[in-house]
């Protein structure tokens, strides 16, 4: 029809002229056909028609008609409040005498990104219902034609205003039936219309530049999932700024950013609340009209730097992972966890242990099952702990456990004990309490279970490839999704061990035990000692020199106590026993300040004082404001989301980010470098991660002006980074 493909050969004036006349041509060409046949009218991007719910106009009875718009893929029309740009669809009726039309009954809109801006509107197909009042005086004979001039703005990258004349001819009769062609869709549209939120207790309070919507569900309500509020009027809520959802006990708190161009005093908050989950039986959208307590002032200028604004679109829209794909990623991630430096030394000993067993298969199977149970249950317990803390309002993600100095201290002690064990300072078996040594087989199952728990604990400092995306998905979903993904991680981690137990043939490929095994064990102690050094460094980054010294003294005490224990078991003399008792007392005195000492976590200041943040001069500390400034100045920004306790992060930093070629590539392309140091708790960073669909580090992102943020893989390769920088 209209040769859009030839546009680049046309002059501006020609093109402009044609665009303006285009809609007029359509109006003239299609108006008559439409009125006569009531067939859908087609414009280049929209199919439009009027539908009636019933087969006739009945005097004195209202009739619902629908304006059905079907947009070409990727194109959208607007809601009553169009958001950052656009125009709502309008219907100007030309109706037979006496018939009057009510307002458009707007379906719940969606948030549609246009670059960094957000529009409120509809993609695909939408029905706008209008109720016609038919007077009792209408003669119930003949036919009547309903005419409407409909104007809309349809946009994708470009925006095109279109205008059509639609008509619908209906008989006027004493009675009517449901119109088989449209009654069902109209009824379904009506059911889905947002209505006053029922059963929930809702209130709104202004707090300066934000408004908090408190939403308490009725008992037994389902999970609402992600919530979003759409104000009926413009210049109240900033469309492109994030709305954040938190949960305090049983109440949902949705924080809304006040518009930077706030229209004036805001005595009430009125609009539509949408939920990715449920707001009641088969209800996903409801209207709210609440008095606004507190006061509001114009909010921050929206950050138009990021193409996917933080938290704007509910996770379903960014669900590039399905539940099963997330579970599969978690499974693979769990599998790879076995190879990470914190786990490998411990588990390789366990696996090599197989080679020495000449047990019946049933014993091995039981043991493998107990081990797998230990692993999976511990992962599920971690998931539950994370859910509970997030429900209490904490901004946490994967790795949260390592943001606590107490946990880091405990892990350092644990790795030290394991390393001493591999070095041969003492044997583990000697620790098993006598009560556990009942039936031999049962004890071995308990041991295996404990080994499973231990494996997860030692794995907790690590994030394996594939885990990041899966965990991000898990934490954005419901509690069940979170637990399913955590369980999948556990199953993946336990899998190699279980397979080796179930397929005796595979075990034959394991190396035979021999004298080398003892030396190999001793060798594997060294990665563990290295892990201890790293944890001490993490603690130093989190707290201070005193805490580090206390931890080192505690390690000294532990080492000495274990050695002493062995001496006693091997039958030391009384003199030895007395000396050891005195020494242990000394250790206890040293350990005391460790337990009572302050473990207050230093909190990241916006300037960032963390070790990971300031060690390299070309890196600046990440803050959302700084990112916005740099992007606002048209700079490309690379953000390294990292933490001192994240091994993968440190490896990537040393091997890739600090590499000379990479550094000169960054400099040459004038990429601004920001480092988001998540060593300590930092809700701004947690939110930035959430916006990227992640819940843990490492995450590497390239923010390019006017384009989608580019996520690089968790295990960085120099080539990947160079390839990402090349087109800049």
């Amino acid at each position: 029809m209209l040769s859009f493909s030839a546009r680049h050969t046309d002059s501006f004036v020609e093109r402009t002229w044609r665009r303006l006349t285009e809609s007029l041509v359509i109006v003239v060409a299609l108006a008559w056909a439409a009125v006569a046949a009531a067939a859908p009218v087609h414009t280049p991007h929209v199919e439009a028609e009027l539908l009636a719910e019933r087969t006739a106009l009945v005097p004195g009875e209202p009739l619902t008609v629908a304006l059905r718009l079907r947009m070409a893929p990727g194109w959208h029309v607007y809601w009553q409040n169009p958001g950052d740009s656009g125009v709502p669809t309008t219907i100007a009726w030309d109706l037979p005498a006496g018939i009057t039309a009510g307002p458009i009954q707007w379906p719940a809109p969606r948030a549609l990104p246009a670059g960094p801006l957000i529009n409120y509107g509809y993609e695909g197909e939408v029905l706008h219902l209008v109720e016609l009042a038919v007077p009792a005086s209408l003669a119930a004979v003949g036919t009547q034609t309903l005419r409407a001039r409909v104007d809309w703005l349809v946009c994708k990258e470009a925006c095109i205003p279109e205008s059509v004349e639609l008509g619908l001819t209906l008989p006027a009769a004493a009675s009517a039936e449901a119109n088989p062609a449209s009654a069902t869709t109209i009824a379904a549209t009506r059911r889905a219309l947002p209505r006053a939120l029922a059963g929930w207790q809702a209130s709104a309070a202004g707090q300066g530049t934000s408004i908090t919507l408190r939403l308490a569900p009725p008992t037994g309500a389902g999970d609402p999932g992600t919530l979003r509020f759409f104000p009926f009027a413009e210049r109240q809520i900033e469309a492109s700024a994030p709305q954040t959802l938190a949960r305090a006990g049983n109440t949902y708190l949705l924080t809304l950013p006040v518009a930077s161009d706030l229209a004036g005093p805001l005595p009430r908050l009125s609009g539509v609340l949408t939920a990715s989950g449920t707001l009641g039986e088969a209800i996903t959208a409801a209207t709210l009209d609440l008095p606004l307590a507190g006061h509001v002032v114009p909010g921050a200028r929206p950050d138009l730097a990021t193409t996917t604004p933080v938290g704007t679109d509910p996770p379903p829209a960014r669900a590039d992972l399905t539940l099963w794909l997330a579970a599969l990623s978690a499974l693979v991630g769990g599998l790879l966890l076995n190879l990470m430096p914190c786990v490998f030394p411990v588990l390789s000993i366990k696996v090599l242990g197989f080679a020495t067993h000449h047990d019946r298969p049933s014993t091995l199977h039981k043991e493998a099952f107990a081990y797998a149970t230990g692993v999976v249950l511990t992962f599920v317990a971690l998931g539950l702990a994370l859910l509970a803390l997030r429900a209490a309002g904490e901004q946490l993600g994967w790795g949260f456990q390592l943001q606590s100095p107490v946990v880091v201290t405990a892990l350092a002690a644990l790795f030290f004990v394991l390393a001493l064990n591999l070095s041969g300072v003492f044997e583990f078996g000697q620790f098993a309490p006598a009560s556990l040594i009942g039936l031999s087989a049962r004890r071995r199952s308990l041991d295996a279970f404990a080994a499973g728990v231990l494996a997860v604990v030692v794995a907790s400092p690590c994030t394996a490839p594939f885990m990041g995306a899966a965990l991000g998905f898990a934490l954005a979903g419901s509690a069940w999704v979170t637990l399913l993904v955590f369980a999948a991680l556990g199953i993946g981690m336990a899998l190699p061990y279980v397979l080796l137990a179930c397929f005796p043939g595979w075990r034959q490929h394991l190396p035979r035990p021999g004298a080398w095994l003892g030396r190999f064990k001793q060798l594997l102690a060294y990665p563990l000692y290295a892990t201890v050094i790293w944890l001490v460094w993490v603690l130093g980054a989190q707290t201070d020199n005193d805490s580090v010294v206390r931890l080192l003294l505690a390690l000294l005490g532990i080492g000495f106590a274990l050695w002493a224990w062995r001496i006693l078991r091997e039958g030391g003399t009384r003199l030895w026993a007395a000396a050891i008792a005195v020494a242990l007392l000394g250790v206890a005195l040293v350990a005391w300040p460790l337990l009572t000492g302050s473990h207050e976590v230093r909190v990241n200041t916006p300037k960032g004082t963390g070790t990971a943040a300031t060690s390299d001069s070309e890196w600046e500390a990440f803050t959302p404001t700084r990112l916005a400034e740099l992007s606002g100045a048209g700079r490309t920004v690379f953000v390294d989301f990292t933490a001192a306790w994240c091994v993968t992060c440190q490896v990537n930093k040393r091997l890739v980010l600090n590499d000379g070629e990479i550094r000169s590539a960054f400099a040459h392309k004038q990429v601004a470098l920001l480092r988001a140091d998540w060593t300590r708790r930092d809700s701004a960073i947690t939110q930035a991660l959430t916006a990227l669909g992640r819940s843990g580090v490492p995450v590497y992102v390239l923010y390019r002006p006017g384009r989608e943020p580019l996520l690089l893989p968790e295990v960085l390769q120099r080539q990947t980074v160079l390839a990402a920088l090349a087109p800049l």
Partner: protein
Amino acid sequence: MSTRMATIGLVLAILAGTASAQAPGAAAPTFTINDTAGKPIALADFKGKYVVLEWTNPECPFVQKHYVSKNMQGLQKEWSERGVVWLSINSTNANHSEFKTGPEVANWMRAQGSAQKATLLDSSSATGRAYAAKTTPQMFVIDPAGTVIYNGAIDDKRSTNPADVKGASNYVRAALSEALAGKPVTVASTSPYGCSVKY
């Protein structure tokens, strides 16, 4: 807990500090952008004068409405004669399908008989973002002290129909008339309407 609250407070304070940089009463963000001929133009060059910023995009039907009806050119001429500096800014990103090069935009403006001081190519979109410009057209009026005194729509008729210009109440003319007469601007902020700025 108290440290966490302190952090939140600090973050809020910083956010509040950057708030409403483009709102009426706020200082207009400075910029230096090349015009369609590649000559750098700075807002600072016009200190002491009233400046109008017009966000534009020749491909946008709302912009076309105001040029086809000669409304925009009329305003440009009317106020330039009274010493107001009129700058048209195109913030369409260089990667967007509606992006135009300097000569292309200049040709289009010439064909329209436009009368602005300069048309600026903000192809990195940085200035558009600094002003948080959302639509084309979107209008800003800056007073001689560098303060934004109007931000919003060109008029009160949200449409693409050139015929609607007649009978519309023009906010830019109202703001400039009041300001040049030494009066405070009555309507200092409105909802801009149009296409989204193609960031």
